[in-house]
């Protein structure tokens, strides 16, 4: 447990000390949402209809942006080899990195969501479902993201490649997360979508670190 927490603390400290990075991701999130009214027109009815989708897509893109730096910096200065050699299992190390990524990306995005709900004129009753969905679903984004980031260590143009790889994997949380909000807005219940989102997270928790650790081992060979 101690090595896991140690790695988690190290990653959090690194990203908080370079505070700009977290701010950049959140800034991108806000900017992406703000772009849409300029593209589709400012009518409130239209925006509130497509609002949940906009916020979720922007959250996905913001998560993707920070992914390629997940392992790249550690690989460049050799810490990744040290982490692989440590007594901490590589899967646990991946889980620690995914947790750090979620704490610095997914969680702040969730907290920022009500502000963006105002920009897209979202029905206030739907905001709790939006936040709950983002809270449950953003760990999936971080977990799948570690797989893509681990696969692209040492690649040419890792940033674009990570996006191409990970966006098909991001479709299920997007569908269920945005679907939950839309279901709750049409006087249906978002329960089914949220439960499925939870199932995705629970399935990704053990499986994604397995795949990412295998990818890391291949990268470090």
């Amino acid at each position, binding site marked *: 447990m101690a090595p896991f927490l140690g790695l988690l603390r190290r990653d959090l400290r690194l990203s908080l000390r370079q505070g700009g990075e977290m701010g950049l991701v959140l800034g991108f999130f806000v900017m992406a949402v703000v772009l849409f009214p300029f593209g589709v027109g400012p009518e409130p009815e239209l925006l509130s209809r497509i609002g949940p989708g906009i916020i979720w897509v922007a959250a996905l893109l913001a998560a993707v942006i920070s992914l390629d730096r997940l392992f790249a910096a550690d690989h460049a200065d050799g810490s990744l080899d040290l982490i692989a050699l440590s007594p901490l299992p590589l899967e646990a190390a991946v889980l620690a990195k995914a947790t750090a990524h979620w704490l610095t990306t997914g969680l702040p995005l969730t907290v920022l969501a009500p502000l963006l709900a105002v920009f897209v004129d979202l029905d206030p009753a739907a905001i709790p479902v939006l936040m709950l969905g983002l809270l449950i679903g953003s760990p999936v984004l971080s977990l799948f993201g570690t797989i893509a980031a681990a696969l*692209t260590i040492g690649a040419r143009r890792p940033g674009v490649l990570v996006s191409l790889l990970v966006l*098909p994997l991001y479709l299920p949380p997007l569908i269920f997360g945005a679907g939950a909000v839309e279901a709750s807005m049409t006087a249906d219940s978002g329960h089914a979508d949220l439960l499925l989102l939870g199932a995705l997270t629970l399935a990704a928790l053990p499986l994604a670190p397995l795949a990412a650790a295998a990818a890391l081992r*291949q990268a470090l060979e």
Partner: protein
Amino acid sequence: MMTRLANPARFMRVSGAALPWLGGATAIALAIGLVWALLLSPPDYQQGESVRIMFIHVPSAVMAEGVYYLIALASFVALVWRHPLADVAAQAAAPLGAAFTLVCLATGSLWGRPMWGTWWVWDARLTSVLVLFFLYLGYIALVNAFDDASRGARAGSILALVGVVDLPIIKFSVDWWNTLHQPASILRTGGPTIDASMLVPLLIMALGFGLLFATLLVLRMRTALNERKARALRLYAVEPRATEAAERLPAAGAAARMRRA
């Protein structure tokens, strides 16, 4: 048979002997299938002559799905048993699968225009095939993104396995999404039950496409192995001592064995 064909030299001999037969069988199957499907089969009572696109569209859809599972299987074999030709097969198959998917999407579009009045509709099946196309593109991009070819092969095999595990999840969620958003639609969700006069040419076309894939796969694998040989020979010509030193390392043993074969 897998272990017997694991030796690249033996694979080249066996595939070289089999290739003319494969090609011939492909030509015959496709010739019979195309003539029967496009000229001799009856027009549909509702769709008229444009139903004939189905004879290209459905076999390519079957191949698109099947090739992805084949790539996943080959990747599994490559990772678990380190079969030397498994990742060659997977990488050779990927552009073929992507091409089948593209043909499926394009012919589907061409079929949809007269049938539904639109080039594209976000139907569950079309969306799943589009996502499959992006999975293929991602695999091809990843494998080619590394200067070291073996690193690309290893990364690609993991991605293929992740993709095949995620594919049912993606399909389920796209189905879910589609049933929630289904507008009042004129689309029949299934086809009509198909008559034997159309089923037989369809099966022949499917067989022809399968044989075409097998022929092209063997051709691409032989090309890839020849490229490897050529690269090793070029390296040897430039720096014989370094290549021989590298040969003594187990990882380069396969390349050396292939050169001497």
